[in-house]
Structures are given as structure tokens and as C-alpha cells.
């Protein structure tokens, strides 16, 4: 079952204006650089993007914002981006801020076929407005939870370290973050990997995302992997 395709351009062929996309990554760590570049090149517009962050001015989803391709962001944190701020204040861009754990778990729910999940995050805050609140017993105490819906995204664009031709994925370090759940959640999932190997080369015990969740896979090129906050200590 070979899911290999040539490159990002081919991978995103089916992505059209006004679709909903998930994009993996935390900050600039583990983002699908090749797919983002191809989306910018293609120029699709009116996109709703589900991604933890919105990139920086000249990298990541920031590149798509710069081309006015994004209609709405669903994120947990969107700092570090002046163009984002400008579009938000001017009303060009819609933003829905949700707790980071809610974002992750709504992806998990989609991938695991759960229509909704309950989380205590946001109870009693403006995040709870318009949402069902329900009490459950936790450790013998009644606690309030919000009902949150599984995401429904046309495409998930994820980045893994290694992958095989069957679509099995392995991540490295904290570049894993949202990528596995988004890979499981997309109606169509595109995985770009630093190294694509033949089926059978990855240890089946080490697969983070089984290929059944992945529709297209390709080996990315020219990864920049930009560091957002370079912090070091002296020797």
C-alpha cells in the first residue's frame, strides 16, 4: 500500500479555497514547512487553520498570513507576529482562542471517533460561553466540565522525522507535539518527513502514527527548522 507522492505541490493538489486545515507544530517546532510553502505558492484563500500557533512574521503560518490566505485561526497562542496582529485589529482575520489541551483533545477525539470530550479547562471563563457545562464526580467531588466537539478538518498537514511508504510515522523530540493527533484527525492527512524509507525499515514497536491514518507521504526538502527562542548557557 504505497502512499508515496513526489512532493508538497502534488500533496496539496486537493486543497481548495475555504477549506479547513490542521497544521502540526508547536511554535516553529515540527511544522510542515514544505506544505506551507506549497500552499503559499498555490495561493488558496479563505482557509480556516487549526494550529497551536500562527508562526512568526516571515516563517510558518506567518507566510500564509502575509498572503492573506487565512480567514480564521483556531489556536491557543498567537503572539510573536505583527502581521497577524494587524489583520486581527483590521477585522481581516478571525481568531478563535481555545485552551491548548482542548485543542489537542479535540484532535484526539476526531482521530479516535469520539464526537465530543469533556474538559474542565475554561469552566467559569469566557471560553465556556455558549457551551454545555456538566458536572461529574472526580475523586469524590463534583466538578464542572465543558463539552467540546471533535474537530472536522478537510486536511491535516503534519511533519514527522521518519516515515515509510505505508505512511507510518515516527517523530523526534518535542517536534512531535500536535502532529500525531492531527495526523489521526484529518479527513485527508498529508505527512512530510525528513527521511522516507521503504516499508519494513521502521521498527513496528516504534511507530507513533500507524499508516492507516496517513493518505499521502513525501520526503520534504530544504528544512530550515528555525529556532524561535535561542536560549543557551555558558560552558
Amino acid at each position, binding site marked *: 500500500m504505497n502512499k508515496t507522492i513526489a512532493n508538497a505541490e502534488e500533496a496539496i493538489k486537493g486543497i481548495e479555497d475555504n477549506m479547513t486545515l490542521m497544521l502540526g507544530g508547536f511554535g516553529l517546532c*515540527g511544522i510542515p514547512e514544505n506544505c506551507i510553502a506549497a500552499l503559499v505558492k498555490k495561493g488558496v484563500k479563505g482557509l480556516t487553520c487549526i494550529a497551536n500557533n500562527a508562526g512568526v512574521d516571515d516563517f510558518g503560518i506567518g507566510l500564509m498570513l502575509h498572503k492573506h490566505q487565512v480567514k480564521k485561526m483556531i489556536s491557543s497562542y498567537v503572539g510573536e507576529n505583527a502581521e497577524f496582529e494587524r489583520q486581527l485589529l483590521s477585522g481581516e482575520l478571525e481568531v478563535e482562542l481555545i485552551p491548548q*489541551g482542548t485543542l*489537542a483533545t479535540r484532535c484526539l477525539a476526531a482521530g479516535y471517533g469520539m464526537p465530543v470530550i469533556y474538559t*474542565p479547562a475554561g469552566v467559569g471563563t469566557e471560553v465556556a460561553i455558549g457551551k454545555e457545562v456538566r458536572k461529574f464526580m472526580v475523586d469524590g467531588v463534583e466538578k464542572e466540565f465543558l463539552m467540546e466537539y471533535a474537530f472536522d478538518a478537510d486536511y491535516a498537514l503534519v511533519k514527522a522525522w521518519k516515515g515509510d511508504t505505508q505512511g507510518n510515522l515516527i517523530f523526534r523530540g*518535542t517536534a512531535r507535539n500536535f502532529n500525531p493527533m492531527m495526523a489521526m484527525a484529518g479527513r485527508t492527512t498529508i505527512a512530510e518527513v525528513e527521511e522516507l524509507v521503504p516499508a519494513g525499515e521502521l521498527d513496528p514497536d516504534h511507530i507513533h502514527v500507524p499508516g492507516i491514518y496517513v493518505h499521502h507521504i513525501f520526503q520534504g526538502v530544504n528544512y530550515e*527548522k528555525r529556532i524561535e527562542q535561542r*536560549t543557551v*548557557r555558558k560552558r
Partner: protein
Amino acid sequence: MLDKVGIAKRIAKEIKNGYYVNLGIGIPTLVANYIPEGMSIVLQSENGLLGMGPFPFEGEENPDLINAGKQTITIVPGSAFFDSAMSFGMIRSRKVDLTILGAMEVSDTGDIANWKIPGKMVKGMGGAMDLVASAKNIIVAMQHVNKAGESKLLTRCELPLTGVGCVKKIVTELAVLDITPQGFRLLERAPGVSVEEIKNATEGRLIIDGDIPEMVID
């Protein structure tokens, strides 16, 4: 009066051997530097790591290895990576023993506001709402008063809330307090700070019970 390092040092004394700890951005991050020698704790970073180590040596930064503040970091032996769903799964199921985070306002019923200032660009709550909603033990590192001298320990938060009735303890430049059904309870004074000063700087209900000792920091 404590500086930021002082607040971090005082909070470090709250950490017990064997704790899994999540440190927020800002003063909480500093706490890692003052954990008593010989104590075995594990730092959780909600972007998917247990066993966070110090910043890397220059030239050894790894773009695939960052903390929840997007800073380059290292790992310690015995660490584990996982995805964001599991990360918040362990937070929600209260496996993290202690969460330390900053705040703009705290109420005397334990409400916390730390993510949004109306009229200013809103960057988002990140993982803060998840952390405060689930943590079994939350310590807040914050300034007792703002630059205008107004108290940030209130009867009721004025800023949009991050969580309700969740804060257990507060360490400020002036004092250590915990939250009781009767309001803030003063536990310790910062070196050189009088009970009167703390009283004046606290808008919410404040319980002062007997002699209030001065903090001991290293």
C-alpha cells in the same frame, strides 16, 4: 521586599522530593535554578516532555527540542517525549504534583486572571486554562501591587478569568499567602516588610492570625 529571584527561591522551598512539576513562563521558570541539591524532581513541559534539563551549551541548540516557552532546552536522563494529547491527559488526570505560574490578578476565592487584558492585543491562553483547571496544587508567583500601587490580590478579579477557585498559594514580593474559605491567609512576610504594608497592599479579604514570621530564604 523580594526581587524576582527571591520569589523564585521562596517558591523552590515548596517543592518536595519526588514531585512532577510544571513551570510557567517568567518567574516560575527561574524556580528550576533553586531546587535544593539532592532533591529528585521531574519537570514537565506541556509541549510534550517529562525530564526537562537546563538550556543547552552554545552551539548545541536543537530545533526539535524546545520547552513550552519555545526556548531551546536539553533533557535529563530518564526523560520521555509524548504528544500534546497525552501531555494534557496527564495534566487533567492530576499526575502533575505542582504547577507554578504567574498571574495578573488573584481573588480571595482562588480565581486567577493571567491571559487577557481587554483593549490590548490578546495572544491567547496557551495551556494555562488546562493547567489551572486540573492541577491539584497551584502556586502563583506574582507582584502584590501593580505599577500604580494598586493591589492585584482582590476580592474579585477585574480581568477576564483563566480559572475559578483553583489557586492554593501565592508568593509575591511582599508575602506568602494561601487561599482559605475565609480569604487570603498571611503566612510569611518578605524580609523587612511589615504586616501593615501587606495589609495595605491587599484589597481582598486578608486573615492575619497571630505572629507572622519573616520568610527564610537559603
